[in-house]
């Protein structure tokens, strides 16, 4: 169970789960783009529903576990892979045979992880754990999560940061999605060609989607 | 000493069976107590080592490369012949035997050649079982192609990588036995001497190429599978590391050398382009299936090949040999190319090449078919020359290739030293004066897999009662001492010229006088010159580095020292054989049309040379043709 292959499987499976999660996450975030009157109520009631559903509670724990496992096993693999190449080349033009992203998934992943810490502090810690400034209620009595996002994205530094972070996110997802399938043993030739395209489309939607929301909210 | 070829009784088709019935066997328990050294890990070496290990012997296998898989068997591109008659085109064991004997210009033993053909079919079965991905028809059956010197399609192939694929199968099987702890593998180890105790081969002295340490290994029998020695010409199709040292050391310890001068010059190699060149890359002969060879009809025609119209091209092979055309045997095709090049019709930068053109084949079969058949060869050609051969013809030129000659062996593949066997290219056995294309992989494999594992029992059965040799025997000490002194001597010269300098010199003389065409005066001159080279080498060579470390320059020097001596023997042999046969073409002996003139009445024998304190003594093994009547070889 401690084999390299097992670790790869964990990273691939958790990665795919996180990819699926991101689809749900982004879809919900698109609510933020609606006119304010609609957006606030819809977004808040949606988040209340999520918070109170026992199924979602379980999924939430799976999600935390997935993030931790993904990061932990990716770290293990990276450490092991570094050990496999203790001495680096004096000159290495890896850009001529592979993409920068594929060579730097660990670095990109670390950036995303750091972002995640901030992101959780911004939202999850306040809403779920009640740390920091208290979150008020909206007209329907739901916790006003919308307000949290709205305030945050009216801080220009956060907007820039959240938008910029969507670039490494997109890159990470692009390489991660197709590689996850290959790690799991998907090798159908035509299927892989399709997968390559799907990965691009997916990564662009996620990157642009998550990147553009703060900007639009900022100008609202 | 009288040469005994030990050919079994009976009609041709029963000889091998009769031999097997009559030879001694060893019971499994005793086999475990017997050890065999195999030097070389190519097709014959790996085949022999793995099969002997499967039989129960304790095997040690040595190679100079970093892995057994690198042996130069990998380089054979075109294919392997077998008398399967899958194409229903009238092939049979007998026809294959006859083609091979005729291809060799009747200078090999009938019995050996017949056995080669006989064991070819089971060999294909063997390799298929070992997972060789041979080319297939859509229906799933094995595909065949044709090859030079024959009129049937009996060549099995795996794209342009047949040698590599067979080699990998042999290497796989070898490592299966390494895993089973029945074979101990010693890569980066070069045999530097043979140890003979009481007239029998009992071990070898090896130089560990990583540490430089001299090591002793003892065994009940020694098998040499060390390949060909055409690097004596320096420029050849062989790997740079291929050498003649093992066979030469065995020769000096008493093994007779058979037909040393029989060297095949391959017609389709890439031409030499500069003095610094180290190697001539072979383009598979299979290209001659669909490619047409030509030169311009006019001397000094500088137009691009595609600009030269059909009627101004001389398809000289088709002109001279209408029934075989571009598929004439190698020696004939090479000589015909040399004839055109010498007459001034050569093409290319150095005017040393001829065209091999696929235009017609592409028109006829379509680009896809040609790509399917030769794709990787065309790729390789482009990688090396930068030319796209789908668009313009290849430029090819003859190059030193295969050593038909080698240690003289009897029907059991044993040399004149009891307990010393030679298998594969390093022996002289089946090909006579010229080898047919796609017979080399065949002979190497059949020797290693099928013949040796049967015949070696016959010898070891007697040895199982004898004492097992020990590396503490004084003969081991003596051999190691000699080698150690030899190395010290070379390192101490500290002259002013590099090893490569002398190798270029030797190659120049050998290529000039002892390659495609030879004559008395030239050979006599060559012997004198090589002796001068030898003298100069031992006075002026400079080898840096130490003996007790990895020292590639020392390795080269040791090999060259042996090549120089071997070159003298090759010229001596070529000089002695006053006839033209196969690849051996003596200018004094040719017909009015310039074809080889064989002299059966005087030279129907195998020359077996005995080393005699720096000189060579000729022994003759008469070739008796009981079953076929040696005809004049005609491919017209």
């Amino acid at each position, binding site marked *: 169970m401690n084999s390299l*292959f097992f670790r790869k499987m964990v990273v691939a499976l958790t990665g795919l789960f996180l990819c699926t999660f991101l689809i749900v996450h982004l879809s919900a975030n698109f609510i933020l783009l609606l006119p304010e009157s609609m957006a606030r109520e819809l977004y808040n009631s949606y988040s209340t529903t999520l918070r109170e559903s026992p199924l979602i509670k379980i999924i939430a724990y799976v999600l935390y576990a997935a993030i931790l496992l993904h990061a932990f096993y990716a770290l293990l693999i990276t450490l092991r892979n570094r050990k496999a190449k203790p001495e680096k*080349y004096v000159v290495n033009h890896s850009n001529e045979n592979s993409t920068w992203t*594929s060579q730097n998934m660990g670095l990109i992943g670390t950036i995303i992880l750091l972002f995640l810490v901030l992101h959780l502090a911004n939202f999850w810690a306040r809403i779920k754990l009640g740390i920091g400034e208290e979150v008020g209620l909206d007209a329907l009595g739901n916790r006003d999560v919308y307000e949290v996002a709205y305030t945050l994205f009216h801080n220009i530094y956060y907007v820039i940061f959240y938008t910029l972070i969507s670039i490494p996110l997109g890159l990470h997802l692009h390489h991660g999605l197709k590689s996850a399938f290959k790690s799991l043993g998907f090798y159908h030739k035509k299927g892989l060609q399709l997968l390559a395209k799907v990965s691009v489309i997916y990564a662009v939607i996620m990157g642009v989607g998550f990147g553009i929301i703060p900007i639009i909210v900022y100008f609202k | 000493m009288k040469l005994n070829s030990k050919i079994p009784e009976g009609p041709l088709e029963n000889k091998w069976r009769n031999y097997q019935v009559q030879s001694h066997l060893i019971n499994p328990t005793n086999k475990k107590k017997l050890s065999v050294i195999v030097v070389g890990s190519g097709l014959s070496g790996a085949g022999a080592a793995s099969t002997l290990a*499967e039989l129960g012997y304790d095997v040690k296998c040595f190679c100079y490369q970093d892995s057994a898989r690198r042996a130069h068997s990998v380089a054979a591109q075109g294919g392997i012949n077998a008398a399967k008659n899958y194409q229903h085109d009238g092939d049979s064991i007998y026809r294959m035997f006859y083609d091979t004997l005729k291809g060799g210009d009747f200078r090999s033993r009938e019995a050996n050649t017949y056995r080669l053909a006989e064991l070819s079919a089971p060999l294909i079965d063997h390799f298929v079982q070992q997972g060789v*991905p041979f*080319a297939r028809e859509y229906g799933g059956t094995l595909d065949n192609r044709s090859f030079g010197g024959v009129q049937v399609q009996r060549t099995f192939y*795996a794209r342009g990588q047949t040698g590599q694929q067979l080699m990998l199968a042999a290497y*796989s099987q070898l490592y299966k036995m390494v895993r089973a702890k029945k074979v101990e593998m010693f890569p980066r180890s070069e045999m530097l001497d043979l140890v003979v105790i009481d007239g029998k081969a009992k071990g070898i002295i090896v130089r560990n190429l990583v540490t430089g340490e001299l090591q002793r290994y003892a065994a009940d029998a020694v098998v040499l599978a060390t390949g060909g020695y055409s690097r004596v010409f320096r420029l050849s199709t062989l790997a740079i590391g291929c050498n003649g040292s093992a066979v030469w050391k065995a020769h000096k310890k008493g093994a007779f050398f058979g037909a040393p001068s029989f060297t095949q010059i391959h017609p389709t190699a890439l031409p030499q382009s500069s003095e610094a060149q180290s190697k001539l890359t072979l383009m598979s002969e299979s290209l001659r299936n669909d490619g047409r060879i030509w030169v311009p009809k006019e001397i000094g025609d500088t137009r691009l090949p595609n600009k030269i119209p059909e009627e101004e091209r001389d398809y000289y092979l088709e002109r001279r040999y209408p029934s075989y055309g571009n598929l004439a045997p190698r020696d004939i095709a090479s000589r015909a190319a040399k004839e055109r090049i010498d007459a001034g019709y050569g093409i290319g930068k150095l005017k040393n090449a001829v065209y091999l053109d696929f235009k017609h084949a592409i028109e006829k079969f379509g680009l896809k078919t040609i790509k399917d058949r030769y794709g990787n060869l065309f790729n390789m050609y482009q990688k090396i020359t930068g030319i796209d051969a789908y668009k313009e013809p290849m430029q090819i030129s003859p190059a030193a290739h295969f050593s038909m000659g080698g240690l003289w062996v009897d029907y059991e593949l044993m040399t004149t030293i009891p307990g010393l066997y030679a298998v594969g290219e390093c022996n002289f056995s089946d090909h006579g004066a010229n080898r047919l294309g796609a017979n080399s992989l065949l002979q190497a494999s059949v020797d290693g897999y099928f013949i040796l*594992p049967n015949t070696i029992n016959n010898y070891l059965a007697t040895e199982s009662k004898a004492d097992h040799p020990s590396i503490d025997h004084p003969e081991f000490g003596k051999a190691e001492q000699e080698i150690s002194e030899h190395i010290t001597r070379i390192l101490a010269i500290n002259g002013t010229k590099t090893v490569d300098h002398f190798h270029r010199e030797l190659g120049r003389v050998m290529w000039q006088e002892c390659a495609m065409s030879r004559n008395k005066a030239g050979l006599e001159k060559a012997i004198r010159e090589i002796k001068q080279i030898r003298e100069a080498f031992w006075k002026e060579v400079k*080898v840096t580095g130490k003996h007790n470390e990895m020292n590639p320059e020392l390795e080269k020097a040791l090999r060259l020292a042996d090549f120089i001596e071997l070159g003298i023997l090759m010229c001596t042999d070529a000089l002695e054989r006053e006839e033209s046969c196969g690849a051996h073409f003596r200018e004094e002996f040719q017909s009015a049309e310039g074809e080889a003139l064989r002299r059966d009445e005087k030279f129907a024998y195998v020359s077996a040379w005995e080393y005699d304190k720096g000189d060579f003594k000729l022994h003759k093994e008469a070739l008796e043709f009981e079953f076929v009547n040696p005809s004049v070889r005609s491919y017209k």
Partner: protein
Amino acid sequence: MKVIFKIWRQEGPNEKGTIRDYEVDGLNEDMSFLEALDHLNELLVLKNEKVIAFEYDCREGICGQCGVFINGRAHGPHDNITTCQLHMRSFKDGDTIVVEPWRAASFPVIKDLIVDRSALDRIIEQGAFITAKTGTAPEANSILIPKETADRAMDAAACIGCGACVATCKNSSAALFTAAKINHFNSLPQGKAEEHKRVAEMMFQMEIEGFGSCTFTGACEVECPESISITNIAEMNARYVKSKLLK
């Protein structure tokens, strides 16, 4: 033609290595890269220096013995060739050429540019064979193999074992090498009997030899002289999963 070679020199496995500069004149474009090194070595001998140890044998791109890192690429600047197929016409007069040995924990340097690749042999030893003794084979055409199957097996079997995949991989993964061999055998009917054992044992060996894992950068298939597709690795993974599930 004149170039400046910057070449890794290292006396032995435990010695410290360093890059040394050699200005070499008298080269020409038709020389192969290895012939240029030969030329340099001759000059070194005449200067009473030790020659640079580097690997080669067939010099026609098939034995897999040669292989160095040249100007930041395995086997030099071109895709899908061996070092011996690289020619000086790929460089310009006055170029600087940096030459380093393959780098991987599993490929320790023996001397200068020579590394020990025996780890690859040991992967082969763990199952890249068909357990059948010489002399036991059935008639070759008794098992029909569709052309497509044979062709695919051949695509994978084309690997020459040079180790460029490991050298170029940032993880020093031997996945392409191992996958090519496993897929060659496992896709043929002859290899079926031992397919699960083969994939499990060879992949296990790959790991204990210290090679890293595949993260699909795709560098290997660009440097592979035989253009073996990285899809082979995905296929090997599938075979591995299957072997575990069917155990």
